[in-house]
């Protein structure tokens, strides 16, 4: 399959089940809601070392938030419910509770619930106040700028992590420009995040390493400088490869995001140095979710 | 009115009768010799049935201020157990703290014909007697509570001689209509008022400078010298405290051979071994009981479920208040006499402590050799309501059943007890000793608890059911003073029992001291404090039975 001169590889991205939730951080104004959300989602690029993958889904208008203030919706994913709960709790405790004027709410219902502010309440040292409003429990925790309001629980939903595609271009600059274009479009899609810095990752990995201590290492088949040293997957014209990784609440959401992302890359086309779109997989044996690029773009 | 009970298997330990088939003759409420002349007004065929005297509960909280506090504090206890009025019975309610009428009906339906309230505060004696007066069918009586009353402690602080103390004790017993003397946490209730929160056997009351050991000796001696049959009834120091086993043994040894009844011994038999720092001391305690023939005990068995603990021991109740379930409790000071504490409590079979308490009680039953010196109580309602006695009897008589229950309890507690290795099973004869003959002897009831000629015709007839719980829950017949009050486990007649008292002699000169004391410190005058016989018997429903003093009493004015 070729779109606008860009070859779509007959391959698939392989993704894994994750547990995820959406939380809403509000604040006195959009600026402070965003500051808190950025801190909350910081150092959350990959579960491998961060324990979770998190990102900002979108900014929320006051009419969309529970308390009628500016807010930010954040998605956070982890491999299991327990790990997710731990990450949400420590991040909420260090990055939201601490952030001036903030409030913290659940942004999603789930059959299973987990603690959101449930344990943060103990920061109140006995002065915390519980309020049941419309069947949901909130905690009011006295802090130095007033009260920190947090919902007690948030829903946990089964999600998908690790959707991806690779952009193969003739130069670094062209690969980067294409990824930026893709991310701009993908951010408009609800229920997904691209957890890496700016949404783009340059250090794609393969499973295994020559070093025993490591279970993943650089994806040498896609490293342009190794074209002559390894069993390369790159043609001579390709000088740079970048990847976009997508986590979402469902497979369909990731489908959608990949489609608009790949389309944006292809719109730049061969004339802007884009040669191929490929994807990362492990042979299809590890992850139950397969995103076939040609099916998505069909 | 002459009645014959024909062919029952008689268990009458007072006369050494163990399951012999005999006929019993009753005339006008008394057991009589086989009459030669007349024909019977009534003959009841009890062939194959088990016949015993009516059972006697020698320690049950059925009257007095604290029971009323429990009733007031626990409406849920009432709402969950409502008894509707019938043609015969009046309505009532309450599981742990039943209303007076219901308590009487339930006792009778279990074959009990007497119950003794063990903690009558002198100043509250009228109230206690009025409540017991309202408790139908069963006989009753009470032990008057001394030992934390300011008058006695003043006498002791002033080093008054034993004579004076005897006089005070006798005077109090007479005018509060008691049959015994009880001491609760000797001096501790008083010390609590001086902000002491614990009091060991040899620890001095901060104000009076007297120790529990001295109080026990003085009172035990008074009871002995006055010729009161019921030995000093002692609720010891450090109730419920892990490690109180040493105090308890010390108390037994320290009484210098005087008769002493140690009540709800289970709560006083705790060691501090093991990971939980709470262990069974029943083996040591039982050994001491077996050794000291002057000591009698009742167990105060706990059984699992919701109940309420009502005690004069406000010091220990105050310490226990964090365990109140549901979370409400009362501790109060009662004039110059004592205090009380009432705490609802739920014994849980999956609690290590509660499970071990259950085992400690049963171990004590099984390891004390002489059934004449150990009595079956749950310290109603503190360990469990009295309605659980049949269940307790089954635990004692049926090892398989006991071990089945045991295997369901907190696993760590099971490991901490050797109950499973105790093979003893009580016999019907031994049960009859514990609940009839022994109890009557202990309380000092000359004409109760036996089936000999001249005895009151308080008789219970059971079907010999191998399920002892069923057997003792629903007797076939219960006779109270010759009247059939229960048939097939159901009440068919409501009669009114008597109030048993003793009247030890005293020297009236004690009133010269007491009158000004009442005037100055009490809320009522001495004249009003004294309960007259009329107050109990005037309406024709109640009556007073004066039981004889022991021969050789020191005083004969």
């Amino acid at each position, binding site marked *: 399959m070729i779109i606008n001169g860009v070859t779509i590889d007959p391959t698939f991205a392989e993704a894994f089940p994750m547990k995820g939730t959406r939380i809403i951080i509000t604040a006195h104004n959009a600026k402070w809601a965003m500051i808190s959300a950025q801190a909350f989602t910081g150092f959350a690029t990959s579960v491998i070392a961060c324990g979770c993958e998190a990102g900002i889904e979108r900014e929320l208008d006051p009419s969309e938030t*529970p*308390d*009628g203030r500016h807010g930010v919706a954040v998605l956070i994913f982890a491999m299991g419910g327990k790990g997710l709960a731990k990450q949400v709790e420590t991040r909420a405790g260090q990055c939201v509770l601490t952030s001036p004027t903030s*409030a913290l709410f659940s942004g999603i219902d789930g059959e299973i619930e987990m603690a959101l502010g449930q344990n943060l309440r103990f920061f109140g040292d*006995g*002065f915390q*106040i*519980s*309020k*049941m*409003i*419309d069947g949901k429990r*909130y905690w*009011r925790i006295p802090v130095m700028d*007033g*009260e920190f*309001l947090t919902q007690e629980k948030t829903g946990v939903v089964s999600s998908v992590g690790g959707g991806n595609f690779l952009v193969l271009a003739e130069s670094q600059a062209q690969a980067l420009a294409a990824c930026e274009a893709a991310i701009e479009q993908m951010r408009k899609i609800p229920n997904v995040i691209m957890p890496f810095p700016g949404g783009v990752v340059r250090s794609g990995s393969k499973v295994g390493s020559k070093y025993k201590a490591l279970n993943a290492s650089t994806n040498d088949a896609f490293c342009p400088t190794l074209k002559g040293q390894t069993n390369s997957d790159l043609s001579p014209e390709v000088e740079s490869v970048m990847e976009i990784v997508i986590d979402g609440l469902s497979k369909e959401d990731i489908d959608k995001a990949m489609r608009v992302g790949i389309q944006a890359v292809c719109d730049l086309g061969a004339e802007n140095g884009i040669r191929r779109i490929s994807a990362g997989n492990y042979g299809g044996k590890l992850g139950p979710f397969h995103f076939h690029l040609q099916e998505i773009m069909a | 009115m002459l009645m014959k009970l024909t062919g029952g298997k008689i268990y009458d330990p007072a006369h050494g009768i163990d399951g012999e088939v005999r006929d019993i003759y009753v005339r006008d409420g008394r057991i009589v010799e086989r009459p030669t002349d007349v024909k019977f007004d009534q003959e009841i065929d009890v062939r194959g049935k088990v016949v015993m005297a009516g059972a006697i509960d020698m320690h049950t909280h059925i009257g007095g201020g604290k029971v009323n506090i429990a009733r*007031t*504090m*626990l*409406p*849920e206890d009432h709402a969950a157990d409502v008894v509707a009025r019938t043609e015969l019975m009046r309505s009532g309610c309450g599981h742990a703290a039943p209303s007076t009428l219901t308590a009487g009906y339930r006792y009778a339906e279990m074959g009990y014909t007497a119950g003794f309230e063990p903690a009558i505060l002198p100043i509250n004696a009228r109230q206690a007697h009025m409540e017991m007066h309202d408790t139908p069918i069963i006989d009753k009586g009470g032990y008057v509570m001394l030992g934390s009353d300011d008058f006695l402690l003043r006498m002791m602080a002033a080093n008054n001689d034993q004579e004076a103390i005897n006089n005070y004790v006798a005077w109090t017993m007479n005018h509060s209509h008691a049959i015994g003397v009880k001491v609760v946490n000797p001096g501790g209730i008083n010390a609590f008022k001086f902000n002491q929160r614990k009091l060991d056997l040899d620890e001095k009351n901060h104000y009076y400078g007297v120790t529990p050991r001295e109080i026990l000796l003085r009172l035990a001696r008074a009871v002995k010298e006055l010729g009161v049959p019921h030995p000093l009834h002692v609720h010891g120091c450090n109730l419920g405290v892990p490690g109180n086993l040493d105090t308890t043994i010390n108390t037994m040894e320290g009484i210098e051979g005087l008769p002493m009844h140690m009540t709800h011994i289970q709560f006083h038999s705790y060691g501090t071994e093991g990971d939980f720092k709470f262990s069974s001391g029943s083996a040591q305690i039982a050994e001491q009981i077996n050794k000291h023939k002057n000591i009698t005990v009742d167990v105060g068995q706990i059984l699992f479920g919701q109940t309420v603990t009502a005690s004069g021991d406000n010091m220990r109740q105050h310490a226990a208040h964090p365990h109140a379930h*549901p*979370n*409400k409790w009362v501790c109060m000071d009662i004039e110059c006499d004592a205090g009380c504490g009432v705490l609802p409590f739920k014994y849980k079979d999956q609690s290590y402590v509660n499970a071990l308490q259950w085992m400690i009680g049963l171990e004590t039953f099984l390891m004390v050799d002489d059934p004449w010196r150990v009595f079956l109580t749950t310290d109603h309602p503190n360990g469990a309501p009295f309605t659980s006695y049949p269940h307790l009897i089954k635990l004692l008589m049926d090892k398989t059943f006991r071990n089945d229950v045991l295997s369901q309890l907190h696993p760590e507690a099971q490991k901490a007890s050797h109950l499973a290795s105790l093979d003893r099973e009580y016999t019907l004869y031994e049960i009859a000793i514990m609940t009839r003959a022994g109890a009557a002897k202990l309380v000092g009831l000359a004409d109760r608890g036996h089936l000999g000629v001249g005895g009151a015709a308080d008789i219970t007839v059971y079907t010999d059911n191998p399920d002892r719980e069923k057997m003792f829950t629903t007797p076939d017949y219960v006779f109270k003073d010759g009247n059939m009050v229960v048939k097939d486990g159901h009440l068919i007649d409501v009669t009114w029992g008597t109030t048993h008292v003793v009247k030890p002699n005293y020297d009236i000169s004690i009133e010269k001291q007491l009158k000004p004391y009442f005037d100055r410190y009490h809320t009522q005058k001495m004249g009003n404090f004294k309960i007259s016989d009329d107050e109990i018997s005037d309406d024709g429903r109640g009556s007073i039975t004066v039981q004889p003093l022991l021969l050789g009493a020191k005083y004969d004015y």
Partner: protein
Amino acid sequence: MSALTFTLKTAPALVQRIDCSALTSDALAEKSLKDIAEIELQTGNTTVRADSVFDISGDDVNNIVFVNSSDKLDFVGHSMTTGKITVEGNVGAYTGIFMDGGNIEVNGDTGIYTACEMKSGQIKINGNTGDFVGGARPGRKNGMTGGTVIITGNSGDRTGDHMRRGMILIEGNAGDYCAARMVSGTIAVLGDTGAHLAYAMKRGTVLLTQTPSRGISANFNDCGSHTLAFLPLLFASFAKLDSKFAQVESFSRVQRYAGDLAGIGMGEILVKI
């Protein structure tokens, strides 16, 4: 289906109170009109057949109506978990006791202990209530533990006594000892409150739109004026109610008083500023 209607007969006039706890959707499910007519209702120390005191019509047990009601009808909606009960006229004591769902609407006044130990559901009284709304039975530790009570008129004394959770919304005035011994939950009053407001309150919130005419008890300390983030959420939850509270303009600026400081002092009175 038409509403199952119990019309109280005018003659003979009621002498004793009637226990209506048997007349709920839960208790009447699967029962025919004949069965219902035969139900024995406790009155005084005896029982009477339902059809001897009520004219009974209709068939929808999930929609029960009491017509010509009297303040002698007690325990209406006892332990109900579903359905709707409408009362035309006054009703007696313990309306909605132990209620765990469903809906009661009274077009009249209620007696004492309305919503006593209620767990869930909604009670709306288009009139005044007696004392102890949402309270606990004597000796009990917890009053209502959930649900919403709306009172368009005035509430009696000791509203929310021992209340544990849930909401009581009073469009008129509250009587004396409002929120006394309150354990937690929310009481909001649009009118005035009586003497001893929040006496012995432990936790919970009393929300007032005007300063109480009798002032705030000395047992409550002023914590200053604040913007509280939970109030907009609370007002948003009022929006769907059939009540004046749905029209109250949301505010989050309040003067906060904490007490009762004679006890644990974790309760709060919030007064709009």
